[in-house]
């Protein structure tokens, strides 16, 4: 594509500053092209921007040039969110200012960071639209901040965090770190990565009711703690698959090893599990709780959830969007037995630490009988569950027999 157009500056100035709230802006961003199965520069309509140059709107609020220091010594005596923010935000950051050139009514980012920021905003917009379509209330995550390339450190002598992206509930914000070694699609521009992180944000918004500091870690033992961390990762991957349909989204940015750990394509050795196996693994690795063993393993267990949900979405009579409807409903909307209900009322995390409790919540959220049957069939098979463990909603549902 080669374009050349001479346009007067006032038009661009107006596109950037005069766009009424909610009016779509045509903008070139990096997007995955499902037909070509590759990323490409694509012209999209960004619908929720309030300030185009600052790339601020309903979907997200970028913050640049921030400096964050997570030093435990500084957190002594911190009890409120305000105190926490004051303690960790060495430099709170400021509006970004993306630079565009205009061609035929389309805004083209004119440098790498402007493209990265514009793409990140659009990725948040698409992720939010998908979550709203699944039933997330509009007031959740509206205008959520994302720190772009923040300088985050626990100890300045050890350098700054790089090559990662995160949802950080304590700041109710996303963190998109600089890249140093990663040479793939930049994380901020990877729609799957943003949708994954947005999935974490949805989980906090609904399961923990948006709390900046959920209290379960202080109450729960290893079963609940490992389960919630694992399923958060798996559910976040499911959100990424729902938003993009791209099974390879991890590999586009991270290395192949990371991608293989999170591959949802069925692998009996990786995707068939049981409560007994989980309990045994917990018993053997209690000493490593919070350490390197579970840091890696939680993604693998999470992938079991993502793979199971993905499989359910392929069964007759339903689709992955309806499976994601069920997942979102399981967070809070199903009421008693929802994940939010379990987190609030499970005193030590024993119930939450069971696949049956999580599966019951998801099945309860199914929007129709075909989706419920699909979820029952797959979850019973992948996690070796019996129908009577699933609250009567799976009675008579056949197993898919992937795991035997």
């Amino acid at each position, binding site marked *: *594509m*080669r*374009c*050349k*157009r*001479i*346009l*007067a*500056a006032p038009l*661009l*100035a107006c596109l*950037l*500053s005069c766009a009424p709230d909610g009016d779509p802006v045509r903008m*070139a961003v*990096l997007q995955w092209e499902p037909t*070509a*199965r*590759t*990323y*490409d*520069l694509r012209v999209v309509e960004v619908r929720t921007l309030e300030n185009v*140059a600052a790339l601020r709107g309903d979907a997200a609020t*970028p*913050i*640049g*040039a921030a400096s964050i220091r997570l030093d435990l010594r500084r957190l002594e005596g911190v009890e409120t969110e305000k105190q926490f923010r004051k303690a960790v935000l060495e430099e709170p*950051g*400021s*509006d*970004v*200012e*993306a*630079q565009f*050139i*205009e*061609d035929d009514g389309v805004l*083209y*980012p*004119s*440098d*790498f*960071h*402007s*493209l990265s*920021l514009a793409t990140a905003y659009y990725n948040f917009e698409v992720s939010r639209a998908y979550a709203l379509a699944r039933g997330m209330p509009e007031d959740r995550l509206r205008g959520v901040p994302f720190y*772009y*390339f923040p300088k985050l450190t626990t100890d300045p002598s050890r350098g700054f965090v790089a090559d990662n992206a995160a949802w950080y509930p304590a700041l109710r914000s996303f963190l998109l770190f600089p*890249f140093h070694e*990663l*040479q*793939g*699609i*930049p994380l901020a*521009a990877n729609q799957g990565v943003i949708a994954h992180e947005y999935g974490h944000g949805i989980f906090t918004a609904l399961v923990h009711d948006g709390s900046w500091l959920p209290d379960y870690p202080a109450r729960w033992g290893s079963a609940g703690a490992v389960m919630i961390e694992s399923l958060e990762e798996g559910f976040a991957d499911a959100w990424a698959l729902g938003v993009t349909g791209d099974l*390879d989204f991890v*590999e*586009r940015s991270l290395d192949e090893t990371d991608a293989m750990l999170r591959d949802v394509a069925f692998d009996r050795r990786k995707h068939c599990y049981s409560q007994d196996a989980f309990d045994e693994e917990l018993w053997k690795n209690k000493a490593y709780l919070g350490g390197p063993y579970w840091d890696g393993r939680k993604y693998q267990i999470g992938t079991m959830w993502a793979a199971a949900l993905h499989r359910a979405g392929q069964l007759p009579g339903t689709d992955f969007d309806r499976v994601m409807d069920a997942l979102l409903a399981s967070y809070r909307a199903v009421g008693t037995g929802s994940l939010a209900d379990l987190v609030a009322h499970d005193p030590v995390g024993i119930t939450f630490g069971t696949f049956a409790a999580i599966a019951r919540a998801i099945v309860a959220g199914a929007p129709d009988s075909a989706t419920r049957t699909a979820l029952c069939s797959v979850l019973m098979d992948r996690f070796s569950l019996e129908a009577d463990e699933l609250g009567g909603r799976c009675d008579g549902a056949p197993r898919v027999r992937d795991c035997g």
Partner: protein
Amino acid sequence: MIRAALLILAIALPLGARAVPLEGAIPGDAPPRERRKESDRASRGVGISLEGILAGLYEDDPQGSPFVRKTGWGLRLGWNLTDRVGLRDTNWMFQPELQWTSRSDSEGTKALMVESRLDSFYLGARLGYRLGDAAAAFRFVPYLAAGPAATWNQVRFQVADPVGLKQGADRIDTRIESLQWGAGYGLGIGAAWLSDGGDGLTGRLELLRFHRGYLEEMALTFGLGVAF
């Protein structure tokens, strides 16, 4: 100073326009022989100057910090019109200039690289005040400058999705070009070392603020060249 202000306002006039003689610059106001004897060395030559320039550019930072620093280089062509606008025999100097500055940078990963090049063209009117004697070989000239500017932007997006490449997709190369109008203004101090005939070396240190579209930048420019 009123004359100076009038000249700043006159920058949009075609360069070849004949200026109306101003008070104090009317021919015959003093004996020609005496005037030639005291004339400014800068007015004795053709009046053209050519400088190479190196600029430190402080641009709006997309990432939100106060600015990002880049380096540009270019050329500047000046035409000394001091006499033609009726400033002969004063310490004032008037010189329109055409300046071209180019800068380029690239940033990204192997999978996404963005290269951008900006060529800025600035038509500035420089109004200065010579410090020291008109006959002196070496002189400093503090000045103000302002004028319209245009920037030619060329951006190249190269995408090489690692998964896409494995699956047979092509590398993608997209180029966009666009012109932005704007203006620049600022101040500086010029220096010149001129022979009796008016040719010699020129240099300057200049701080200009540029507006292009909705973007702004500061340019700290060092220039060195020749006048003849």
